[in-house]
Each structure stands twice: as structure tokens, then as C-alpha cells.
């Protein structure tokens, strides 16, 4: 409420954050940690065995890797910040204050990461002979720094799910090293190596020019490397799930990638077990140096792992339900302590921008703004998760009643915050929308103009 309200059109706020975040995870984990670790393996083998094949593979793979890391990885990482500062400024602003030092450290680590990868890239042809081992060490340093980034960010992400005692103690160390931190970090390392290994195999069998013999040998080597993190990925995922508070755990099913999985558990297992079988088949083919079979299996396997990662991230984001910072702030950035305050005193008197933008607001403007502030983080009008679908067919009084009980009725929804009069204003507005009596063309800025013409 302290900031002018903007909602991402059509896709809605959560989806756009998720698209950017998942893309970033693919690159920051899969490429920055994973592929660079695989390049490190190749370069180290090249050095130890004095093999040009391994050396060439490492060098050839490094170029697109560096371009992707610095061109998309870094930008989508900053992008999460950009998107959240625009869509949930109070949320990211509060998080920044709690985790200022981890974030500041992360900035230093991120800077070092970029410096190291640039030196690594630009010194490839120069640091040879006795300098080669330092070059290999640079790759190692980069992997460690990229993992340190994951370490720092995982503390913050974990907090958003398991804030534990922080709401009472406001203790930073406790907030950072929260219960889901350890397993989530382990999971992230495992999927990084997994995605890295798979991406490297894709590069090897589709893009890299090398002898048949070397390709088979390299596929064998990377399949062996993969055989450790792949099962670990599932194991750590399960371990992470056990740290999720029981009150949240029941939100797991609806947070899966597809609603069909929640509806039909056998389907969920069928799809996920098939995926595991596919991955095992790839491992077997790779370990047995079957390049053709690897070629056929590796892209589907990579897609499966990407989907698994996307699913994990979605579950992690969704499962914490109504809270953005559990114990402090609801997902709609209303503070837990503001809920009762607004119920008693009303929300609109404290909606700074609303009062400036619409000093003589109509009921419709009030209703629309209350909707945006209370529900707009997840619901849109006319876009994804359309609120009109939720209210279609409801009676006016029924909508009023439901709005007052969202928190109990839907376990992952925050409560409505506002006075009784405001609750009535919002429900009237929404029923009007759902019945098609009222239309709203402006879906990004709230409050909308008092009157609109189509």
C-alpha cells in the first residue's frame, strides 16, 4: 500500500516470477555449477592424461557456457529481483532488511564468480604448460563460488518456507540456518551436477566434433559421474519434504506441476516412476558406451529433469501457502499484525496511493483496489487465475460470507483484511464483475479510473 499498485497483465504475478526463477535455476544450477563442474572434469582429465580430446571438449564447451551464464544466468538472477521489486515491493523490501548481510555477501561472491569465470575464459590459450594446473584450479574455484551463491540464496529461500522461531526471536542466524536449509542445499547441489552432466552429454553427442571412440569414452565417464547425484536428487528431495511443517505439507498435492497429479495419485506415480526409469536407462546406456542409445535418451532425460526441477520449485513456492514470510507477512504483503488492525480500522484509510489517486473514490474503485491489495498477488481479472471464475454464480451475500473466511476455507489463502464495510464493497464489486454487470478493462493498475468506456 505504500507503493503504486501494478499487476502483471494476463499471466499474473506468480507465473511471471516462476518463469524467470525456473529459467534462472536451470542456468545458475545446471550450467553455472553443473556444466562448469563437468568442464572441470574434462580439463583435469585432459591435463592428467595429456589428452587433446578432453582438452578440446573442455574448451569448446566453455564458450557457450560462459555466454549463457553471463548473458542469461546473471540477468535472470537479477531479474527475480526486478520482477519482485515491481510486483511485491513490500515483500522483497522486507526480505532485504532481514537478510541484508547474506545478500550483501552474495553480491561479493557473485562478483568474484564473474571475475573468475572471465579470467578462466580469457586465459584458456595463455595459461598452458606449468600454468595449466592454475587454470584448472580456476574452474574449481568457480564451482565453489557458484555453490556458495546457492548456499546463501538457499538460506533465504528456506526461510520463506520454514521461518521456524524467527517470528518470535527475530534471530538472523536461526532464520538463515532454518530447518529446510540443509536438505534444500543438498538437493540443489545434486540437481546442479545432474543437470550439468546431462547438458554436457547433450553437447557431446549432438554438437561436439570428436572421434567415435572419444565420444563413447566421454559419455561413459559422464554417465558414471551422473550415477551419484541422480539418486541423491530424489533422496534429498524427500529429506527436504520431511522438514516442511505438517500444516504446510497438505498443500503439496495442489502445488504439483499438474492438477491431474493431485486428482489422480496413480497417474502421479506412473509419470514419475517412468521418468526415473528413463533416467536409469540413460545411465545404463551411457555407462555401456552406447552412444546411439544415449543420443536417443538424453534429451528426454534432460527434459524430465528440468520438469522435476520446475516441479520442486513450484512445490517449494506454493506449499508455504498464505505466507510470504511465515509469521510476519501474508502473501499479499499484509502483515500478520495488520490483519486485525485493518479489520478494526479499515484498510482504505491507510492505503496511501489509493487515497491520492482517487480522493473521491467510487464504490467500484474501492472494491477494485481492495481486491488488488487482498487478492491481486495471485488472482487477476481477465488473466490467469481469474477471480470472476471464483465468484461466478455466487449470491451477493454469499460472496460476502466467503470473503470473510478465505483463510479457513482454502488452506493456502491469506485472510481478507479490511473493515466489514470494505468486505461488503469488495464482494459487491466481485459479484458485479462475475455476473458481467460490471466490466474492467484496466487490469494492471489499481484503483482503475472511476468510469471506463470500452
Amino acid at each position, binding site marked *: 500500500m*505504500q*507503493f*503504486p499498485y*501494478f499487476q*502483471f497483465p494476463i499471466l499474473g504475478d506468480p507465473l511471471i516470477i516462476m518463469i*524467470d526463477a525456473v529459467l534462472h535455476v536451470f542456468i545458475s544450477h545446471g550450467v553455472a555449477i553443473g556444466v562448469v563442474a563437468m568442464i572441470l572434469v574434462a580439463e583435469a582429465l585432459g591435463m592428467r592424461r595429456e589428452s587433446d580430446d578432453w582438452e578440446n571438449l573442455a574448451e569448446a564447451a566453455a564458450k557457450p557456457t560462459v*555466454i549463457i551464464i*553471463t*548473458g*542469461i544466468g*546473471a*540477468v535472470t538472477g*537479477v*531479474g527475480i*529481483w*526486478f520482477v519482485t*521489486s*515491481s*510486483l511485491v515491493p513490500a515483500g*522483497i*523490501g*522486507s526480505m532485504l*532488511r532481514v537478510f*541484508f*548481510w547474506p*545478500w550483501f555477501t552474495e*553480491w561479493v561472491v*557473485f562478483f568474484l564468480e564473474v571475475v573468475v*569465470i*572471465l579470467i578462466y*575464459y580469457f586465459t584458456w590459450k595463455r595459461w598452458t604448460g606449468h600454468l595449466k594446473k592454475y587454470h584448472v584450479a580456476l574452474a574449481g574455484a568457480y564451482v565453489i563460488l557458484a555453490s556458495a551463491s546457492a548456499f546463501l540464496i538457499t538460506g533465504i529461500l528456506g526461510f520463506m518456507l520454514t521461518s521456524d522461531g524467527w517470528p518470535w526471536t527475530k534471530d538472523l542466524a536461526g532464520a538463515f540456518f532454518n530447518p529446510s536449509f540443509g536438505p534444500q542445499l543438498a538437493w540443489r547441489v545434486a540437481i546442479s551436477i545432474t543437470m550439468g552432466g546431462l547438458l554436457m552429454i547433450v553437447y557431446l553427442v549432438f554438437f561436439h566434433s570428436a572421434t567415435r571412440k572419444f565420444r563413447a569414452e566421454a559419455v561413459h565417464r559422464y554417465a558414471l559421474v551422473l550415477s551419484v547425484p541422480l539418486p541423491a536428487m530424489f533422496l534429498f528431495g524427500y529429506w527436504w519434504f520431511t522438514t516442511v*511443517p505438517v*500444516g504446510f*505439507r*497438505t498443500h503439496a*498435492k495442489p502445488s504439483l506441476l499438474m492438477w491431474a497429479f493431485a*486428482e489422480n495419485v496413480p497417474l502421479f506415480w506412473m509419470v514419475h516412476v517412468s521418468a526415473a526409469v528413463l533416467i536409469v536407462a540413460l545411465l545404463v546406456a551411457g555407462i555401456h558406451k552406447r552412444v546411439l542409445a544415449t543420443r536417443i535418451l538424453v534429451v528426454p532425460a534432460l527434459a524430465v529433469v528440468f520438469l522435476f526441477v520446475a516441479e520442486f520449485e513450484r512445490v517449494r513456492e506454493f506449499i508455504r501457502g498464505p505466507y510470504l514470510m*511465515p*509469521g510476519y507477512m501474508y502473501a499479499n504483503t499484509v502483515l*500478520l*499484525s*495488520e490483519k*486485525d*488492525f485493518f479489520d478494526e480500522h479499515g484498510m482504505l484509510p*491507510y492505503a*496511501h*496511493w489509493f487515497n*491520492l489517486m482517487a480522493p473521491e473514490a467510487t464504490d467500484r474503485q474501492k472494491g477494485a483496489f481492495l481486491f488488488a491489495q487482498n487478492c491481486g498477488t495471485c488472482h487477476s481479472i481477465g488473466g490467469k487465475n481469474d477471480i470472476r471464475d*471464483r465468484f461466478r*454464480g*455466487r*449470491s451477493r451475500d*454469499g*460472496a*460476502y*460470507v*466467503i470473503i470473510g473466511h478465505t483463510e*479457513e476455507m*482454502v488452506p493456502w489463502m491469506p485472510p481478507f483484511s479490511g473493515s466489514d464495510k470494505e468486505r461488503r464493497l469488495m464482494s459487491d464489486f466481485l459479484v458485479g464483475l462475475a455476473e458481467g454487470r460490471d466490466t474492467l478493462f484496466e487490469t*494492471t493498475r489499481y484503483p482503475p479510473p472511476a468510469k471506463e468506456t470500452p
Partner: protein
Amino acid sequence: VNFGHDLLLNPPIRETALRGLLFGTFLLHMLFVLLTVGTAILALSYFIHAWWDNRLSELRWDKRILRMFLMHKSLAVVLGVGPLLLIQVAFTIPFFTGVTLFSPVWLLIILLLIIAFISFDSLGHKIDVHPYVHLVAGIVAMAALLAVPGFFVAVLVATENPERWLAVIQNGFGYDARLTLHWLLRYLHVIGASVVFGAVFHYLFVVHKHEGKRRELLRWLVFGLLVQVAGGIALYWSVLKPPDVAVYAYLSIGIVLTALLVWLATRPMRADQVLHYGLVVPALLLLLMVMLLTRQNFQDRGLSGVMPVAKANARAYGERLAPYEKEALERYRRRMDIVYDNGPTIYQQSCSFCHGPDGLGDGPEAGELQVPPEALAEIRTTRGYIEQIFADGVDGTAMPGFTYYDRRRRRLLITALDTRWQVLHAPPPVEHKVAKAVMDSARKTWSNTCAGCHGPDGRGTAQSAGFKPPPPDFTQYVPVPSRAFNIITRGYPGTLMSSHSYLAADLRWGLVTIVEEMRTKDGA
């Protein structure tokens, strides 16, 4: 204007330190931003120039420049994270307001950066594409890249000028002519600076190799500096607040430094000497610092009124909220203990506020509803019918769909309803026995009166299906006899079902019998 309130969590670091860090990190960031943009401008213009002169095969000089793009842009991005973090903590209200006023372009920055980076880096590392491809990719990338500083400047101009925020909104989330001019001149000042920094940086790489290039880069440098002087004067003229003494001091230093740089740059052009790096680089860095100090000065003066107000408001607001905190945390603790994995809990949480703790339709919200909530303890229905209601809700009432519960939870809930109130059982027998003659009369009444809405077979009619709410399908869903009798007698509030107390009690019981039979005959 009351400027809202700052965030309630205290900043984790002293303000002076925060501002010092912010300035330092911003300086570093801007240095690499200028090198990035300057490198791109040089590379593309050299490419076009070479193509124009038909020297493509011989030259490809832009490739060498573009390879540097990778480094500059990477450092520009990573160094930008620091000031982004610090400004959000130091100037929370103004900065987020600036961002949210220009949300669409702020979000677009990400996409534009990806397009620019991937295009330029691909060109720099695989230059042997067809010249047309190079040109098109280069121009797209350039356009994307050049838009980014423009968007940043827009957000910063907004951040620095809180007294204009409302005007920006009233102007349809855009600047008026005055602000647009100021924004444009500031933007051009950044682009001009990019040319200057880019030229000097790349000069370093050609200084001992290509004399021709050396001269060309010097011309770029002088050109850039002269543009900066002209643009800088216009920029001072366009500022929104009168400059103070410090600004005039910065301006004077800037003019002296620029004059020095022009002299340093033109000397080697005349005498065929090499640029004096020992003087040029420090002078340039100082110039950048002066540029940013001037910006800082306007920002500090622009925000001097807002920041204390926002902080004082936050304190006052925090004090108003304090009494609510304890209860809020208590509610949170209770909430975290609720696990929606069993029917009774789901009923308690999702249904009882209307249907009542004992399923009598007397929940705390029942009084608000024109169509009273169903007394679940007094109905007999089927699993399929409840599933249907869970899928669609009941039109014209408060009853929503419950599709957000997965199949297992819906089943658990239905089972809980059945365990507690036998909703899936057959209706109890109608204990009030009715004589055959009355029963015949009841059947007639059904056909003449009830069937109009409920249909001859109790399934409703095409017309009544559109009622809000529609009558239930009696083959699937009936009230227990005593409740059915009450409904016939008193009607169902909020619906077309009116009171039929004028019918003889025996006849009403006859109607109850008909209804109950419909359910047992077809549905059980």
C-alpha cells in the same frame, strides 16, 4: 502530501555507511555500464563503416571489440546488484515508488538485456555470419541495449522527484513535457559518456598496433566530449530544482576536466603522439565521479523531505500495530497446527462457518445469507451428487465449488459427513402414515403444483434448472422427512419454494412420502 511509511523492519546498517557504500558501488557499476554501451556503439558503427567501405574480409575489427563486450557487460550486471540492494534498503519508499510507477519498462529491462547480451556475445564469438545477419542482429541488440539506460534513468528521475509522483500517475504513468525533456537529456548524457569511455578503453588495445584505428578512436573521444559539453549545459538548464553551490562546484570541475581531456585527446592527433594515459584515465574517473555526485546531490535534496517523514510514519505506524502483534503470532501458531488431512478438520475449517458445527445450517455466518445454508445433518444424498456440488457450487447461493481440494480430500470430507450425519444413507422411513386417498390427492398436488419446478420425476425441469438456486434432484438428494415437511410447510427462504401451509398436514406428509420415495427408488 503524506508520503506513506517506510518498511517496518529496521535497516540493518547505519545510514552513513549505507550511503557511502551505495555511492561507491554505483560508481563501479556505472563505469562498466559506460564501457558496455560504449563498446557496443563502437563495434556496430565500425562494422557498418567497414561494410560501407567494402573492407569486410580484411577487417572484422568489430569482432575484437565485441569480445570485450562479454567482459564489460558481465561486470556491469554483477556490479549493478550491489547498488540495487543498497538503494532498496537506503531509499526504500522513493526507489520502489520509482520502480512501480514505471513497472512495465522496468520489467522489460530483463528481456532487453537478454536479447542484447546474447546477440552481441554471439556476434563477438562467431563473427563469420552473413553481413546482413550481423547487421540485423547488431541493430536489434543495439536498440535493446540502448533502451536499458533510458529505462533506468526514467526510474531514477522518478525516484529523485517525489513531488512529481502524483503528476506522473495523473499523466497516465508517464512524464509531462518538462520531465520528458530532462529525462531525455540525462539519458543522452549517459550515452555520450559511454562513447567517451568506450573510445578510451579500446584505444588502449590498438595504441601500438593500428595507427588508423588510433586516430579514429581519438576522433570518437573528442566528438564524445564535445557532445557531453553541449548536452551537459542543456541538462543543467533542464534540471527540476535550482542547482546549489555544490552543483556549481561539480559543474566547474566537470568543465575543467572536459577541457583538459579535449586538449589531451587533440594533442596526439596533431603531433602523432600517443594519448597520455596517466592523465586521461584519472581525469575520466574523476569526471564520472563528478557526474554521479551531481546526481546524488539532486537526489539527496529531492528526498530530504520524504525520507524523515517516511521513517517517522513507520515508527508511528509500528506503534499502532504493536498491540496487535501478540494475537497475530498466537493466531499464526494455532494456524500452523491445523492439518487439512482429514474430513472432520476440513469440515470444521471450510464448511462449519455456514453449515454450523453440528451440520444444522446454523454456522456463525448463516444469518448473513438469504438462502440459508443446508442443514447437512438432515439430508440424504449420493456421493456423485455431492461431488457435483463440489465441482460447480450451487448457483445463486454462497456455496462455492471446492475443486481446490483434490479427489482424496473431497472423499475424506464426504466420508466425514456420512460418518457424522449418514448423508449417504437411505432416508429414514416416513413415520407419519397417510391414507391411500390422501396419497392419491398428494400425487395430484405433486403433478399440478410441485412438478412445475421439481419435474414430474423430481429431477427438476429445463426451466427450473436455470433458477438461482435450482431445485435439487430428488432422485439424488432429499431432506429427511421431518425437514422435508418443514420446508413444504414454511418454504425455503431466498428461493422460489414458498410456504404451502395452506395444504392439509396429511397432504403435506403425502408429498414428503413422494419425495422420499423418489430418492430410495432411483438413487439409493
